[in-house]
């Protein structure tokens, strides 16, 4: 059940008040995609993830909030350029403005994520070319110093595959495979490698990638663990304490 509330908010940057539809609650059912795109119904709330001041164009999750960094970006040329993005969809444009802000602030992962959200809007609008272009644009935010984060690289791997950037996707998959990531990361990378090999750029969910790949059984308990288990069992009186018998 998704619920919205209409609220009058005062813009952090220009101080003018405007009405906005604020997401109050939503649920989701099913598995997210391999780029963490949420399942329905939450996915359909994407239009309310960012707000935009109709007077000055300030974009934020809540336009009545901000900080010195946000204000600095708002006063920059980068903001003006991003606000004039020719994208016809206002939701896409809001994500791109947000991505520009994150890039301006040097937060490349967050810039990548905002651009990826813009690609999801194109996915929902059934615009595969636009979506692929936005995915490549998202990936460009991560160029530069090597990324160590598993989470970011798994997202990037899906982004590159979905954008048919096969060489880059293959290189990243090889890099991740060499790291012995363990469950469930290794299984997801293997799934991607199979899809890259057959040049498959389709959308898949995490549960599809992990289908028939159950988590490995936990290692057998060591002698020390067994002693601990016995102690706990004694404590909860499953086994009588030998000292008391």
């Amino acid at each position, binding site marked *: 059940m998704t619920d919205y509330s209409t609220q009058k908010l005062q813009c952090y940057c220009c101080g003018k008040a405007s009405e906005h539809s604020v997401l109050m609650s939503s649920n989701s059912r099913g598995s997210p995609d391999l780029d*963490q795109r949420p399942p329905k119904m939450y996915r359909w709330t994407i239009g309310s993830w960012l707000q935009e001041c109709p007077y000055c164009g300030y974009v934020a999750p809540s336009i009545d909030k901000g900080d*010195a*960094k946000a204000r600095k970006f708002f006063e920059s040329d980068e903001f003006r350029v991003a606000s004039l993005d020719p994208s016809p969809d206002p939701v896409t444009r809001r994500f791109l403005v947000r991505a520009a802000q994150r890039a301006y602030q040097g937060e490349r*992962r967050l810039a990548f994520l905002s651009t990826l959200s813009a690609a999801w809007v194109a996915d929902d609008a059934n615009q595969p070319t636009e979506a692929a272009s936005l995915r490549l644009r998202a990936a460009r935010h991560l160029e530069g110093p090597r990324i160590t984060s598993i*989470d*970011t690289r798994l997202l990037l791997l899906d982004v590159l595959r979905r954008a048919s950037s096969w060489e880059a996707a293959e290189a990243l998959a090889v890099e991740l495979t060499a790291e012995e990531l363990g*469950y469930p990361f290794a299984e*997801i990378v293997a799934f991607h490698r199979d899809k890259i090999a057959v040049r498959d750029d389709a959308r898949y969910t*995490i549960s599809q990638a992990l289908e028939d790949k159950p*988590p490995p059984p936990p290692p057998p308990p060591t002698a020390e663990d067994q002693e601990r288990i016995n102690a706990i069992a004694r404590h909860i009186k499953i086994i009588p304490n030998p000292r008391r018998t």
Partner: protein
Amino acid sequence: MASLYAASHLPHIAGLERRHGPISDEVVTALRTLIKLILRSENPAEAIPFLDRCISIQESLHGPQSIMGDLDDWIGRAGHVDFKLVEPFQLRRLAIKSKLFGENSPEAAGECEAIARRWASHGDYSRARAFLERNISILEKLHGAASIEVATSVDALAEIGARLTKWAEAEASLQRSLHLKETIFGKRSEQAGRTLLTSAIVHANSSKLKRHGARFERLRKAETAFASGLDIIEERFGPDSLEVQKALEAMILAYLDCGEFWSAEPLLKRLLEICERTYGDDAAALLWILAELAAGYACERVDEAEPVLERGFAVLRTFLDVGKPIFHRSIVNMAGNRNVLYGGRQKGVLETLVQASETLRGNLRKRWGA
């Protein structure tokens, strides 16, 4: 009898009593010597029966004021003695001071405050409060109801309330203190600002044991008081000043102590910005802030946790690579010095970062379907 000195001195004192009579200066002198010896190397509580006898004889011979020196000496060294044993002597000293200097004298007020502080150390808020209220009443007569002296004592009452976790009482005292500070120094004075900041910390702490509704109300009061207090401190010292940093840090720690990370988070981000400007982007002084942010985000916001955590470890690595890493408990005069690890009241940054990293790994596995 546990005192070794008493065993050897009492026969000598008995002899003096026989020679000069039990109420004599000679007996007082011998008792005083015994008390001094006990104070020098034994438990001061062992001297109590001899002190009692000594001051009784002295008082009957030379009047109450003559025993002040004996009381001062013993009370001054009886800091570790159970206050229930000490209190009768301090009450006696208070009675003498009241008689000598007047019921409403500064001396009587000081003695009341000293007794109050000892009861506070003993954990008895109601007795501490009774004596501090008497102290405040005297100070009001001496200096006027709206005086610095009265405000200082009201602050002491609030501090004792907070120390003994009597949050409601501490809140009431701080309200009283704020009113006084606003009257004496002005509504936008530094003193009023500091009292508001203290009130905010007390409100946050008082939310700990409350039910959801009351807890929310206390936190809202904390937020309001903190915003007002910080506004005054910013106005007086500047937005990036050390005073503002200290205020933010104190409030952050209070929120974190109450498990209110999301109340602390905007303050952590603000302090991080100030510290980046003051100490540098990769200064070790940022580490505790990054560690707390990472720990908080790791539980709920994987997206935000990773970059903060990575930055925290990167700053830690840079710090460990410097030639002479230094640890400071105070951040005063550390502007621009990147090699100083700052740790006020925070726990170890390495432990916090590693715990955050573990939480994040667990949550990442869940996020990716495990």
